[in-house]
């Protein structure tokens, strides 16, 4: 289990670094898919089978397809970054990252209590997912204790869907109107906008 974890962890860190270092956004997106897949592997090692599958289906599947679709739709050129200003900002960025990591490491070195320090002891004597499997246990929790938040997420997704359609459609209309030459004189002949 430990060697598997180390392999997945190394893959995750390497692909995450490549995501932010590669010049071509398409390649970055593909490395991000690989990073999500290795994270799914870590979830499997942690006995979160449901989340591992959801990670692949939702992140590596749906979200990254959306990313690639938008990248290809926009037909981007390579990221050209030159000049001393870019170098300065890049240096500041890496320094800030190092500061964040150092802060984390400092907190990491001072455990608050005894024992392992970062967490209270086990909340349950036995793993609730043991035996029956993880999906069943999560389903029970979702449809009992977490039913209200679960239903709220469906509203959230609906709002997101409507929002995306409004943003995309509104942009097309306004752009088309602007490109159509000088604005027509206001008059009663103007048809009302269909809303």
């Amino acid at each position, binding site marked *: 289990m*430990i060697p598997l*974890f180390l392999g997945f962890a190394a893959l995750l*860190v390497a692909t*995450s670094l490549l*995501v*932010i270092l590669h010049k071509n*956004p398409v390649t*970055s*997106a593909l490395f*991000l898919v690989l*990073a999500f897949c290795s*994270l799914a592997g*870590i979830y499997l*090692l*942690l*006995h*979160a089978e*449901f*989340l591992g599958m*959801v990670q692949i289906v*939702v*992140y590596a599947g749906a*979200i990254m397809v*959306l*990313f690639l679709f*938008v990248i290809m739709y*926009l037909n*981007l050129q390579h*990221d050209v*970054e030159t000049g001393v200003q870019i170098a300065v900002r890049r240096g500041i*960025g*890496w320094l*800030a*990252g190092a500061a964040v*990591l150092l802060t*984390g490491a400092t907190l*990491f070195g001072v455990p608050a209590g005894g024992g392992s320090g*970062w*967490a*209270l*002891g*086990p*909340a*349950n004597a036995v793993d*609730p997912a043991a035996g029956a499997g993880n999906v069943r*246990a*999560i389903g029970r*929790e*979702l449809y009992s204790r*977490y039913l209200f938040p679960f239903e709220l*997420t469906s509203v*959230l*997704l609906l*709002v*997101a*869907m409507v929002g*995306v359609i409004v*943003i*995309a459609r509104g*942009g097309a209309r306004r752009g088309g109107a602007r490109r159509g030459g000088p604005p027509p004189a206001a008059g009663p002949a103007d048809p009302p906008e269909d809303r």
Partner: protein
Amino acid sequence: MIPLSWLLALSAVVFTIGVVGVLVRRNALVIFMSVELMLNAANLTFVAFANHMKSLDGQIFVFFVMTVAAAEVAIGLAIIVHLFRLRETVFVDEIHLLKG
């Protein structure tokens, strides 16, 4: 059993890579991908603690975070597409309307 500290360290490293990506890159799409990396690092922490505490609550939180992330990506990409239509660029330092 994977030690909790290793998982937390891995999560911290991935989160930091996300932070650096947001600060260093200027392509809005890559910045967005770095934000996704940070969200996933937080998710890893949730799952690690859920595993450590033998509790399912952390995993359910990750489920909700994934839902919110999906909605956020859809909205964000729509905004980026709209921005590209208006300004013909996705480089964040060429979008300086509020800079005065």
